[in-house]
């Protein structure tokens, strides 16, 4: 049975497949759920939210009919709270900590958060106002969750903030990287507009290091916040990678969010390499583009995969097949330079490596060939090493090193978000990037306050 039959994927009207899958709560559902929340004191759900949203308060406000106040409570703590309502792994965060896990079932915090922020979006609410100017200026490199969050807090504190953003629109991966059927672009745009409404200047289509130099920023601003995230998907380092039909998962998803949807994958066989959330997104996008069969190939096992459980479940519901302990070694092309098959080798798990995970080793002679029409690479993200070098910052393998207060080796430069995210089993998250953005802003401000006191 093909994916399309299972999922009611339309092969003729692809845009339908990219509409948000998870339905919004109705007014009644929201009120009933809000009234189920216990309004705990010193609530564990707050502790479990990386941005510390006052969850009982925002839920109480839904119950009392003060939806604007609810949205404001959310957005105060989390400048990308509308996106987070949709993309946070809530089972691992707030909802996982809800006390009702021990008695009935946890409150649907993410859905309620979406309900309140959707209301604010629908009603065109502007929730914040710029603080009294303090005459200091900050340049922010990158307008993703981390950069926007730092910009919002700095502007509230009275700083004159300019975001330099390489893409045509800010929002970072919220705008371009997370699939539309989980996070429609308009949500990210609204969050960008909220930041803009605080007089934050956003210079889009402006790549630092290309369109404007690092030194220029260092010379013309009091502080710089580096929030450029991570880069594209790295090469697999195998033959055939430049064939037509091999995609970078992030670019692949981005195309579905920015261009008319192509029907080139309809009925085709697709493999995705990797098993993080990006791989899942690449695979589920392929299903929605009408692919006949989608397989995820991963050189380790389900144990080691870094995608969240709910993402894994979501992909399985979509009919995505998983091939564990499978490593691609060569992509074969046809006479026109198009992908026609992928050659793999079976693996087995050996001794644990430096990261504690058991290292996969090839099983001699187990090569096999899968006929495929497209290969999507999703084995992580490269680092912005050259940008980091332009600012002459200390880093380890492209991960900017920061002190506890988000300062880099250059005291003028702070860094937050994915650009500081080290390797490990856990996945980078929008919500942590947002929290780090806030913290970087507070760090800048506390340095400023110290200076003004001692001066």
């Amino acid at each position, binding site marked *: 049975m093909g994916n399309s039959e299972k999922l009611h994927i339309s092969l003729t009207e692809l845009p339908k497949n990219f509409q948000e899958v998870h339905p919004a709560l*109705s*007014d*009644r559902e929201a009120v009933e759920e809000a*009234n189920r929340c216990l*309004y705990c*004191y010193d609530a564990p759900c707050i502790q479990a939210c990386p941005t510390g949203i006052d969850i009982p*308060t925002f839920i*109480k*406000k839904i*119950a*009392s*009919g*003060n939806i*604007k*106040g609810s949205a*404001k409570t959310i957005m105060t703590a989390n400048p990308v709270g509308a996106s987070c309502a949709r993309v946070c792994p809530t089972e691992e965060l707030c909802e996982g900590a809800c006390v009702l896990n021990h008695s009935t079932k946890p409150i649907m915090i993410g859905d309620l958060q979406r309900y309140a922020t959707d209301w604010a979006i629908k009603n065109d609410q502007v929730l914040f106002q710029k603080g009294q100017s303090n005459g200091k200026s900050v340049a922010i490199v990158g307008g993703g969750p981390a950069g926007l969050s730092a910009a919002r807090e700095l502007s509230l504190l009275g700083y004159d903030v300019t975001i330099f953003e390489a893409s045509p629109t800010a929002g970072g991966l919220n705008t371009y990287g997370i699939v539309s059927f989980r996070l429609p672009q308009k949500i990210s745009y609204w969050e960008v507009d909220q930041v803009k409404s605080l007089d934050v200047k956003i210079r889009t289509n402006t790549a630092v290091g290309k369109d404007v130099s690092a030194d220029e920023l260092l010379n013309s601003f009091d502080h710089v916040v580096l929030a450029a995230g991570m880069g594209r998907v790295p090469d697999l380092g195998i033959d055939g990678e430049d064939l037509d039909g091999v995609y970078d998962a992030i670019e692949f998803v981005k195309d579905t969010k920015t261009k008319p949807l192509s029907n080139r994958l309809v009925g085709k066989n697709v493999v995705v390499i990797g098993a993080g959330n990006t791989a899942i997104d690449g695979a589920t996008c392929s299903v929605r583009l009408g692919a006949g069969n989608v397989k995820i190939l991963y050189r380790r096992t389900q144990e080691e995969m870094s995608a969240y459980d709910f993402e894994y479940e979501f992909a399985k519901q979509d009919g995505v097949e998983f091939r564990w302990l499978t490593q691609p070694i060569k992509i074969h092309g046809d006479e026109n330079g198009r992908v026609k098959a992928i050659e793999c080798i079976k693996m087995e798990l050996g001794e644990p490596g430096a990261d504690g995970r058991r290292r996969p080793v090839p099983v001699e002679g187990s090569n096999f060939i899968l006929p495929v029409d497209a290969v999507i690479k999703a084995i992580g993200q490269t680092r912005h090493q050259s940008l980091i070098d332009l600012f002459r910052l200390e880093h380890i393998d492209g991960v900017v090193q920061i002190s506890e207060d988000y300062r880099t080796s250059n005291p003028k430069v702070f860094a937050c978000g994915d650009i500081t995210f080290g390797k490990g089993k856990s996945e980078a998250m929008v919500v942590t990037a947002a929290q780090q953005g806030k913290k970087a802003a507070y760090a800048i401000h506390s340095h400023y306050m110290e200076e003004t006191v001692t001066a």
Partner: protein
Amino acid sequence: MADLRTNLAGIESPNPFWLASAPPTNSGYQVQRAFEAGWGGAVWKTLGDPILNVSSRFAAVSFNGQRVAGFNNIELITDRPLEVNLQEIYETKKRFPNHTVVASLMVEPQQEKWHEIVKRVEEVGVDGLELNFGCPHGMAERGMGSASGQVPELVEKQTYWVKEAAQTPVIVKLTPNITDITATAEAAARGGADAISMINTINSLAGVDLDSWNTIPHVGGKGAHGGYCGPAVKPIALNMVGECARSPRINVPISGMGGVSNWQNAVEFMLMGASNVQVCTAAMHHGFRIVEDMIDGLNNYLDEKGIASVQDIIGKSVPKYSDWGNLDLNYKIVARINNDVCINCNKCHIACEDTSHQCIDMLKDDQGNSYLEVREEDCVGCNLCSIVCPVDGAIDMVEVESEHPPMTWNDRQAAIGSLQNPSADPIK
């Protein structure tokens, strides 16, 4: 940001949210915490000759799994020495000069007792006095609280005594355990009250245990009636506030309470004539922090409506509250079912069929799908179906044009009286 400041008979407050005289205002520690959380004022737990309280004092009524739909207590007035309370009132007022502290008082019905306590509490700087003529249990058996609050002459006389001595505004707190609250409200006004507040708690017994056959709550196997409050009493309180507000004989401001749990309830009380609201049960259920949403929600409501000051809403619904005899007998609404929203639970049908006017038909369309339809000519517009309907928007109550001009019962009686032939019916 709307102006939330209020003024009750000269007692100013940063916002309309006061804690009612009850356990939340038992001590300086608590009242100061409440002010930090944002409460505009507090009516101190009733002062008087300290009494003894029993253990096991409260019980609540759950409704379909929601806790504290109603709250029942057998607690009396303060059990702490007067000197201690006075000292703490003084300190609280000193720390929070802009917040309102009102002393609630209850003494035996003797002129000199009232004079003495008024003098003592005013010395420590309270902004006003509230006379507790409402506590329905314990104190009443000693001739105080609702025992004196149910007798208009006693209300008037004691208010008068207090006014003889008081420098600050006097609020008389009324008991709802009376047939017509305007009788005691008027008595308070005659006695010189600057304001009235209502309601105190309603005589109640929360429940009986099915196994032990003990009352709920019980004190070592024995129970006594208590006072009921919380969300369940709001409609009773709202009516009493409305009745007093619309009475031409009662011209003093009202402090409203009884079931106020959020900003929406507060708006209702104020529209019905209250100059501010007092809260007890909601704070006991959730803590002082609930006031943050009360303030925020009220402010957003006023901003959205373009109303500059909360005082502008006081009493705005009072002219709309009248006697049955003034309602238009020819005004007509009917139920209309939106079948695209309806989930076919048939609750409206059975409610109408069994207990109202048998006018919702269960039908089938050409495809055999069930749908419901109201026979509008038989519908009396009672609202029952829309009340039991579980889905928002499935039943609309819509106004239909009347064949007759507006005609109230009073108009009708007057018309009949003026006609020679008393059997003529002007409606037909």
